[in-house]
C-alpha cells in the first residue's frame, strides 16, 4: 500500500489496522494486563465488532453475570477501570503518562500501539508513539505503515522515528517521505533518520534510488535550506559513484542527482557534474558551472550559488474562536474517516460566508493549533477568500510550523499572478517571507511574475526576489541582478545581486566585478570579491587592484582570492607585493603561504638578486615564509650581501627559518661591522637547536655592543640546559667573560648549580670565588651543609670545598663542625679553609685540633690555619707530639 496515496482514507487505514491487529481473544482468556485492548468491553464501533451483540452474555455464551453490583439513583453503577481505552481523554492520558514514565513491557506494546493508531486525541497518539520509542522494533511494521497516514503531521513524524527502529525493513516506507513537503515535520524526521539508516548499512536498490532521485529532481522549488543538510547526508550515504552514474540517467533522475551532487560537493561526483555544461536542462547547466568553479578552486568558494533560506518570524498572539466551528474544524483532522466525512458534510451545510469569516478571523487572531485547524478548513473547503490570511499567517509563522498554511495554499490552487499580487498586499514586514512562500507554493510558475516585486519599496522584498530568481536558475536572473547591482539604492540588495551573479558565466561575472568594485559600499565590494572571482584566472588583475582598496574587508578578501587563484602571473604579483605597505605585504605573504607556499620560493628566487636592495629584502621575507631548503639557501647567501639592510633582513629571516645549516653563516655575521646585523644574528642563533650554538653565543658575550651581549645572554639563559650551563660556567675562568657569564648563570638558576659546583672546587681561585658567590645567590649554603652529613667522605670533602668557596658566617660555622670529621682529609681541608677565610671564631677549635688531633697532617693543617689567622700555636712545636701520616695531604686553600 502506498501510505501517501492521497486517495487513501487515513482513518480507514487505521481502523483496518486495528481490526487486523486486535482480533477478539479466545474464549475464557482474561486480559493479562489492564492496558491490553479489552476486546470483551465491546468498546468499539459497529464495524469493529464480529457481530453487534445487544447482550454481552448472550453474545459470548458465558455466564449471565450482571456487570453491576447494585442500582444507583444518580449514575450508572458499572465499575470502570482507568485504562488506555477509557471513554475519558483525561483518564486515557493519565494512564498513558503513567506507562510513559514507567516504560512499557512487551505485553503492553500492542495496547499502546492501538492508542497510536486510533485514539482521537493527537497529543495522546504522539505520547503513545514516544512511549513506544524503546520498543519500536516490536510494533508491527504494517501497523506503523498505516499510522503514517495519520492526519496530524506531528504524529506522522513520531511514527517515522518508530519505523526507523525497524532498520532496513522500514526504508521503503521512509524514503518517499524525504521529499514529502506537504508534511514538513514528517519530512524533517525522515531527512534525519533515512541518511542514518543508509550510513548504517541499509542499501537502496536501483529502482528505489531512481524513484528517490526523481522525487528530488521534481522538488519545485529546488531543495531549500531546511532540507539541505538531510539531503546532503543522503548524498553522502548514497555515495559519489552511484550519484555520478545517475547523472547520465533520464531528465528527472539526472536533475535529482545533479542537485544532490551540488549539495554534497563530493569531489569525485563534482567532477562528473562539472562536465555537464552542455546539458539541455538549464538548472543542470548552472549546477555544472558551479561545480566546475568549485573543482577548479580546489575547495568550496565563499559564494553559495544555491537557494537562500527564508527568514523566520515569530507567531502571532493567541485569541479565542467560536467554539462550534472550531470543534467541527478539529474534527477534520480526526483519525477516523467517518468523523472527518461527518465534519466535512457539516461544514458544507453551513453558509460559506460564515465559515470563511471564521477561517479568516482564526487565521488572523488565534494561536498556532487553532490557526492550523482553520488552515485545514480553508484548504479542504477551498475557501479562496482566506488566501491572503493564509499567506499572511504563513509569513508570520516560523518555518517549521508553516506546513498547514502552505498545504492549504497549495490546495487553493491559486494562479501565479494572483499569488504574487497577494504578496504585494501583505504587511511590509511579511512581504519578504511572502515572496519565498509564493516560490514555495507556486514554484517556477511564479517566476515570470516576480520581477514586478523588484519595484517594491522594501529592500528586503527586493532581496528575497533576487534570491528566489537566483535559486531558480532562471535565465533572466543574471540580467535582473545586474540591473539591481547598477541601480538599486540599497547596499544589501546590491550585495544580494552580486550573489545571484556569482552563478553566471565568466564574462558576466567579470562585468559584474568591474561594476561592483566601483560601488560606494565596502560590503558590496567585499561580497563581489568573495563571490565573483573564485577560480577565474582572468579576474586576477581586478583582484590585485582590489588589494589596494581603502576598506580592510575588501583588500583582505581580495588577498584570499588572489592566494587561491591558479596560474598567477609572477610579474604582476611581484609588482603588487613591491608596491604594498609593509602591513598589507605581510598579510598578502601570509595568505600566499597558506594557499600557495611553493609560489613564495619561486618569487624569492626570482628576485633575491635584483639590483634594488629593498626588493632583495622583500624577496628574503618571502623566502623566510616559504621555509623550503631552497629558500634557506637564498637567505644564507644573503647574509653576505653587500647591503647592510639586506644582511640584517637575512639574519632576521633566520629567526623564522631556524635552520642548523645557517649556524656557520650566522657565526660569521657575529663579526659584521653593522650592529643590527650582529643583533639579528645572535637572535637567530639563539633560536637554532644546534650544539655548536652555545659556544658562539658565549663568544658573543664579549661583543662591544651591549644589545648584542644582552641578546646572547638572553638566548643562553633561555637554554636552561645543564650542558650549556657547564659551558658558560667554564667561561668564569676568563676574566673577560666572568661577569657576563656570571649573569647568565644567575638567570639560569638551579640548573646551573652543578656546573658552578664543579668550578667552585677547581684550582682557579678567582673562578671558584665567583662560582661560590653565584651558588650562594642561587641555592645558598644549605644543600652543602646537609652534604656534610653524608656517609661518603668524598661527598663531604666536596661540600667542604664548596662551602669554603661560598664563605661567610653560615658556611664557616658549618666548617667548624667538620674539624672533628673522622676523615683526615675532610677535617684538614676544613681547617685550611677556615684559615683562608680568616674566620676568627675558629681559633679556639683550631687550637684544640692542633693539640689533640692524633694525625699529624691534621695538626699541621690546624697549625697553618692558626698562623693564617695570626695566632701562634700553643706551646710551640716541642710541645706537640703527633703521629706521622704521610699519605694524608691537606687540600687548598690551607696548604
Amino acid at each position: 500500500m502506498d501510505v501517501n496515496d492521497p486517495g487513501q482514507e487515513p482513518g480507514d487505514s487505521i481502523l483496518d489496522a486495528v481490526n487486523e491487529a486486535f482480533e477478539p481473544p479466545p474464549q475464557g482468556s482474561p486480559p493479562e494486563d489492564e492496558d491490553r485492548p479489552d476486546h470483551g468491553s465491546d468498546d468499539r464501533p459497529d464495524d469493529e465488532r464480529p457481530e453487534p451483540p445487544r447482550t454481552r452474555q448472550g453474545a459470548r455464551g458465558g455466564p449471565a453475570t450482571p456487570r453491576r453490583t447494585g442500582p444507583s439513583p444518580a449514575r450508572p453503577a458499572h465499575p470502570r477501570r482507568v485504562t488506555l481505552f477509557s471513554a475519558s481523554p483525561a483518564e486515557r492520558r493519565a494512564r498513558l503518562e503513567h506507562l510513559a514514565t514507567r516504560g512499557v513491557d512487551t505485553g503492553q506494546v500492542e495496547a499502546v500501539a492501538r492508542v497510536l493508531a486510533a485514539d482521537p486525541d493527537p497529543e495522546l497518539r504522539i505520547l503513545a508513539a514516544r512511549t513506544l520509542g524503546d520498543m519500536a522494533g516490536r510494533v508491527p511494521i504494517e501497523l506503523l505503515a498505516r499510522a503514517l497516514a495519520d492526519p496530524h503531521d506531528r504524529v506522522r513524524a513520531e511514527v517515522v522515528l518508530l519505523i526507523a527502529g525497524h532498520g532496513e525493513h522500514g526504508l521503503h516506507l521512509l524514503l518517499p517521505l524525504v521529499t514529502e513537503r506537504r508534511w514538513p515535520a514528517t519530512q524533517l524526521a525522515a531527512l534525519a533518520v533515512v541518511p542514518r539508516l543508509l550510513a548504517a548499512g541499509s542499501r537502496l536498490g536501483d529502482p528505489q534510488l531512481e524513484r528517490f532521485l526523481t522525487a528530488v529532481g521534481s522538488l519545485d522549488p529546488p531543495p531549500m535550506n531546511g532540507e539541505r543538510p538531510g539531503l546532503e547526508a543522503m548524498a553522502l550515504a548514497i555515495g559519489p559513484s552511484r550519484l555520478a552514474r545517475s547523472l547520465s540517467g533520464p531528465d528527472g533522475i539526472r536533475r535529482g542527482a545533479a542537485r544532490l551532487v551540488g549539495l554534497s560537493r563530493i569531489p569525485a561526483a563534482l567532477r562528473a557534474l562539472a562536465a555537464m555544461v552542455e546539458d539541455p536542462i538549464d538548472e543542470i547547466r548552472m549546477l555544472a558551472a558551479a561545480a566546475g568553479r568549485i573543482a577548479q578552486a580546489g575547495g568550496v568558494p565563499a559564494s553559495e550559488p544555491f537557494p537562500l533560506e527564508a527568514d523566520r518570524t515569530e507567531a502571532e498572539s493567541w485569541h479565542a474562536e467560536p467554539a462550534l466551528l472550531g470543534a467541527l474544524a478539529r474534527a477534520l483532522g480526526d483519525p477516523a474517516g467517518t468523523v472527518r466525512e461527518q465534519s466535512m458534510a457539516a461544514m458544507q451545510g453551513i453558509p460559506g460566508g460564515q465559515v470563511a469569516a471564521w477561517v479568516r478571523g482564526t487565521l488572523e487572531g488565534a494561536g498556532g493549533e487553532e490557526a492550523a485547524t482553520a488552515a485545514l478548513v480553508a484548504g479542504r473547503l477551498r475557501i479562496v477568500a482566506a488566501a491572503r490570511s493564509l499567506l499572511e499567517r504563513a509569513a508570520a509563522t516560523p518555518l517549521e510550523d508553516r506546513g498547514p498554511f502552505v498545504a492549504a495554499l497549495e490546495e487553493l490552487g491559486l494562479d501565479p499572478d494572483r499569488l504574487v499580487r497577494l504578496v504585494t498586499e501583505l504587511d511590509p514586514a511579511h512581504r519578504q517571507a511572502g515572496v519565498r512562500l509564493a516560490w514555495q507554493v507556486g514554484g517556477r510558475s511564479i517566476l515570470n511574475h516576480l520581477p514586478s516585486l523588484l519595484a517594491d519599496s522594501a529592500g528586503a522584498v527586493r532581496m528575497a526576489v533576487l534570491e528566489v530568481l537566483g535559486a531558480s536558475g532562471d535565465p533572466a536572473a543574471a540580467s535582473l541582478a545586474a540591473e539591481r547591482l547598477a541601480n538599486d539604492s540599497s547596499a544589501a540588495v546590491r550585495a544580494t545581486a552580486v550573489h545571484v551573479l556569482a552563478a553566471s558565466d565568466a564574462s558576466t561575472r567579470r562585468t559584474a566585478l568591474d561594476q561592483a568594485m566601483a560601488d560606494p559600499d565596502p560590503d558590496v565590494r567585499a561580497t563581489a570579491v568573495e563571490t565573483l572571482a573564485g577560480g577565474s584566472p582572468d579576474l586576477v588583475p581586478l583582484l590585485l587592484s582590489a588589494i589596494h582598496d581603502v576598506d580592510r574587508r575588501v583588500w583582505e578578501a581580495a588577498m584570499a582570492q588572489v592566494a587561491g587563484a591558479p596560474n598567477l602571473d609572477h610579474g604582476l604579483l611581484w609588482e603588487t607585493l613591491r608596491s604594498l605597505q609593509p602591513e598589507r605585504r605581510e598579510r598578502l605573504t601570509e595568505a600566499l603561504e597558506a594557499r600557495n607556499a611553493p609560489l613564495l620560493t619561486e618569487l624569492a628566487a626570482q628576485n633575491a638578486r635584483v639590483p634594488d636592495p629593498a626588493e632583495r629584502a622583500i624577496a628574503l621575507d618571502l623566502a623566510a615564509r616559504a621555509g623550503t631548503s631552497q629558500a634557506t639557501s637564498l637567505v644564507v647567501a644573503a647574509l653576505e650581501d653587500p647591503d647592510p639592510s639586506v644582511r640584517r633582513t637575512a639574519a632576521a629571516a633566520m629567526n623564522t627559518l631556524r635552520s642548523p645549516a645557517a649556524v656557520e653563516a650566522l657565526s660569521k655575521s657575529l663579526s659584521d661591522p653593522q650592529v643590527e646585523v650582529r643583533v639579528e644574528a645572535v637572535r637567530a642563533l639563539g633560536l637554532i637547536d644546534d650544539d655548536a650554538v652555545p659556544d658562539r653565543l658565549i663568544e658573543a658575550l664579549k661583543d662591544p655592543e651591549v644589545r648584542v651581549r644582552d641578546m646572547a645572554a638572553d638566548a643562553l639563559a633561555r637554554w636552561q640546559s645543564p650542558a650549556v650551563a657547564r659551558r658558560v660556567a667554564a667561561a668564569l675562568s676568563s676574566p673577560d667573560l666572568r661577569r657576563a657569564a656570571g649573569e647568565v648563570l644567575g638567570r639560569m638558576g638551579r640548573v646551573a648549580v652543578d656546573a658552578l659546583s664543579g668550578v667552585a672546587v677547581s684550582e682557579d681561585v678567582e673562578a671558584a670565588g665567583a662560582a661560590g658567590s653565584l651558588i650562594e645567590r642561587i641555592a645558598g649554603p644549605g644543600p652543602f651543609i646537609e652534604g656534610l652529613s653524608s656517609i661518603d667522605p668524598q661527598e663531604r670533602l666536596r661540600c667542604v670545598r664548596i662551602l669554603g668557596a661560598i664563605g661567610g658566617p653560615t658556611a664557616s660555622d658549618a666548617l667548624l663542625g667538620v674539624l672533628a670529621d673522622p676523615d683526615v682529609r675532610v677535617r684538614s681541608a676544613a681547617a685550611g679553609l677556615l684559615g683562608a677565610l680568616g674566620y676568627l671564631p675558629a681559633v679556639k677549635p683550631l687550637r684544640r685540633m692542633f693539640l689533640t688531633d692524633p694525625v699529624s697532617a691534621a695538626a699541621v693543617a690546624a697549625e697553618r690555619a692558626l698562623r693564617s689567622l695570626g695566632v701562634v700555636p700553643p706551646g710551640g712545636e716541642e710541645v706537640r707530639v703527633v703521629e706521622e701520616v704521610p699519605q694524608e695531604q691537606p687540600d687548598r686553600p690551607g696548604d
Partner: protein
Amino acid sequence: MTEATAVPTLTPMDRLSGAPELGAAELSDALASAEPAVRSDALDRAGRGPDVLEVVLDALVDPDPEVRRAAVRALVRGDGPRATRALIEVSAGDVSVIVRAEAVAALGRILEAMPPGAEPGSTEPSG
C-alpha cells in the same frame, strides 16, 4: 424503580408511536441497568430539563459506545450552552468513532440551525 427491566426495550414501532419521555429519576434507574440496550433506549426517551441533562451528561462516560452515542443524541435535544460544550468535548475526546461522528453531526445540525451572529449554544436546535 429497582429493576432495569422496568423500562422495556423500545422497538422501532414504539419510537414511531411516541413512547413517553423519561424524567431524571426514571432515566437514572434505567441507566443502572446491566443491559446496554436498555440504557441506550432510555436515553433515546430522555426528556428535557436541567435534572435530565445532569443524568445524560453522566451517561457520556458509559462503557458502551452505543449508550454514549444515545447520550449524544439526547444532548442535541438538551438545553443551551452546557449541552453544546459537552458535545464539543465528546467530538474531540471520545475514544469511539461512532460517538465522535454522532457528536460532530450534532454540532453541524446546531450550527445549521443557528442564525448568523448568534452565540453557540444560545439557540435551541431542532432535535
